[in-house]
């Protein structure tokens, strides 16, 4: 006596408690009396906070005023954003002459232009582009920012940088359109694609030389006004210090880490001493040493630019931290990788460059970016030794008689800026991790083969 149905019972909808809002609330917010109380209290706290922030930051805030007094006349409860808006140029550029701001903007634009090819999938020779960013861009940007007369060395470096930038950009455009590299394109354009290799090389060198000479003449015809480093400031200065720190920390860290693992006792001891010395001292102490003690040891009249001293200190300090990160990555590489590399006849540098480092660096991405974010935030310490980085400027707002006492609003704005930049950096690191498929994806070899 069994009831047999010919067709399948139609699926019923999920119970109301699973799909409706009330069901969700019941399950997640009000599941027991204790949880209900907790939820209500939490909601109330959130409400109070958001409400206060909303009123202070937006509803009662003053956006346009000429002084803090005027802000008070309009509203005494809200934020006085007018001061932050009035100081915007200083917050971003410090005391840089207002007529010359285009130079900073141009410098920023150039670095983007330089690095865009690194993110384009079809462009080759990324190592070269990356290296030229690290080694040539600083000269071009350095001249743009500081200006003045160019010495012969600076002329050559600026020329090289411009030639390189033009080459990079042309190369990526041609790669995107035609799928070939710039040298190939040039050789084809001159109809020498079948010529012997030697002729092709001479041709390329000739083109390089001609463009070098042309650019050299062009760049010697213009000059920008000198701007003393004492006028650098704001977010610009923070980015310069942390940018140089970031660009040099990784190479420095790799060298120090390799030194620490080296079999040569002298190199090992020096590396260990260097790393441990800098790691056991706070950054602020290193900065003070660099700016106040260092000049005392130098002969009188030898005044090294304070900014340079600070940058060197930041670079050394962060290279030491990076060295330990890199060493951790190196230790995670199994011995078999070294042995395998040796067994196919690779030397030390080849083993490191082609086998070990590419694997180790992938594992280190989260830590490296973590250090970079830390470095970026640490650079605000330079405001203590009297450089007007972004924190120094934000603090100066409340001392300006026009905006006297305005100390919370600039700091809130600074916090927002820092959040934006650091969050973008950490998002980018996640993106890199996924791209290099480390992390969890590493566990499934199939997927790795597909990509």
């Amino acid at each position, binding site marked *: 006596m069994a009831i047999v149905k010919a067709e399948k019972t139609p699926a019923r909808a999920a119970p109301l408690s699973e799909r409706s809002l009330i069901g969700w609330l019941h399950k997640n917010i009000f599941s027991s009396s204790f949880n209900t109380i907790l939820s209500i209290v939490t909601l109330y706290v959130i409400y109070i906070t958001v409400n206060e922030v909303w009123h202070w930051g937006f509803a009662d805030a003053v956006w346009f005023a000429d002084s803090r007094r005027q802000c008070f006349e309009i509203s005494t409860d809200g934020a006085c954003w007018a001061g932050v808006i009035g*100081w915007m140029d200083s917050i971003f550029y410090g005391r840089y002459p207002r007529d010359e701001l285009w130079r900073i903007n141009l410098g920023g634009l150039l670095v983007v232009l330089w690095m865009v090819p690194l993110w384009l999938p079809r462009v080759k020779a990324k190592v070269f582009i990356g290296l030229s960013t690290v080694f040539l861009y600083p000269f071009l940007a350095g001249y743009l920012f500081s200006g003045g007369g160019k010495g012969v060395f600076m002329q050559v470096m600026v020329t090289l940088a411009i030639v390189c930038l033009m080459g990079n950009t042309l190369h990526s455009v041609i790669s995107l359109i035609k799928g070939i590299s710039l040298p190939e394109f040039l050789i084809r354009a001159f109809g020498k694609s079948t010529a012997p290799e030697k002729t092709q090389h001479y041709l390329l060198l000739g083109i390089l030389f001609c463009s070098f000479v042309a650019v050299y003449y062009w760049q010697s015809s213009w000059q920008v006004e000198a701007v003393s480093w004492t006028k650098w400031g704001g977010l610009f200065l923070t980015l310069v210090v942390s940018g140089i720190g970031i660009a040099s920390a990784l190479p420095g860290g790799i060298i120090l880490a390799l030194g620490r693992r080296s079999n040569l006792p002298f190199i090992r001891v020096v590396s260990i001493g260097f790393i441990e010395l800098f790691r056991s001292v706070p950054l602020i102490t290193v900065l003070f040493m660099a700016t106040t003690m260092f*000049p005392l040891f130098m002969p009188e*009249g030898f005044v090294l630019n304070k900014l340079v001293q600070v940058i060197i200190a930041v670079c050394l300090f962060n290279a030491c931290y990076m060295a330990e990160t890199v060493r951790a990555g190196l230790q995670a590489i199994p011995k078999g990788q070294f042995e395998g590399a040796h067994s196919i006849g690779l030397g030390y540098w080849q083993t490191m460059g082609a086998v070990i480092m590419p694997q180790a660096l992938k594992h280190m991405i989260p830590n490296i970016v973590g250090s970079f974010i830390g470095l970026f935030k640490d650079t605000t310490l330079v405001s203590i030794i*009297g450089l007007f980085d972004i924190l*120094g400027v934000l603090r*100066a707002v409340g*001392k300006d*008689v026009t905006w006297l006492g*305005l100390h919370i609003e600039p700091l809130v704005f600074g916090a927002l800026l820092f959040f934006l930049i650091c969050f973008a950096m950490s998002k980018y690191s996640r993106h890199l991790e996924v791209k290099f498929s480390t992390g969890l994806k590493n566990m499934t070899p199939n997927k790795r083969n597909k990509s």
Partner: protein
Amino acid sequence: MKIRKLHLSAAVISVAVLASATSASAQSTLDIVKERGHLRCQVGTPSAGFYNLNAKGEWYGLDVATCQAVAAAIFGDKNKLEIQSVSSQARFTALANGESDLLSRTATWTMSRDTELGLDFLPPNFYDGQGFTVRKDSGLTSALQLKGAKICVTTGTTNELNMTDYSRVNNLNISNVTFEDWNVRDDTYLKGGCDAVTGDKSSMAGNIASFPNPGEHMILPETISKEPLAAAVRHGDNKWTDLVRWSIFAMVNAEELGITSANVDEMKANSKNVSVRRLLGVEGNLHNGLGLTKDWAYNIIKQVGNYGENYEAYMGDGELGIGIPRKGTTNELWTNGGLMYSPPMR
């Protein structure tokens, strides 16, 4: 081997020290400054009234005016000046190692600083002192009435110690409420967390000006500490010290003589007063001893103004001033009962 190396490095160091010693005596600060083309003047991180930045990134303030005066005396142009902002920890080192030519940054002139740090202090341009801020409706008129009061103070400063001493001497039984940051200290006072705030009078005047209702607060008349704020130069180059000292005196002297930036041209052309004519370089050779041009003091007064003008502009009721009244204080001219006094310029 090691020992020999040590000897060698010691020799190198001693040679370097010798070389630096000789090079220092060879060139005077004035020559160095002239050769460089601008004066390097050290101030601190912005402090209302004395040295502030405006939104355009320009410095202004009473101590900045001193820097400008020296630049104007040397170059005839107050803008041939590089202002360096140095933290208070590094201020004396930066002067000692030649990074700055002049330190003009609310440094209190004390004996130990003058005698032990290799500094020469110049005539004070502001006599500050610690005081108390209270609400007007509290009915207090003297600090001696602060019996058992709760007073907000920033920690780690001489303010805290001075107040404890004052409380003990006068049996006031004051209780301290200490803060790391003066912004928080003032916010607490405004919200009623303490009966009074103590701090340097100049900075408190600035802070009161930034309160939502400045009219409801006042500074009590008592001053419980001495803070003569003065510029300083490196010890050893007396010519340079003279130059800076008399640039500062020139501003005070100009006020005594009634010369302002507005009437200086007229005074120079028409004044019969011998003192005025000597100061402005019409008569006599006051400039010779300083190694400057005849119109050094004229340039200071024309471009920077006399002491009183600068006080009004930055410390007083000027547009950029922080509103500390000058009348009846130590910062008044000696003729009005204050301490601002210039030796005769003749």
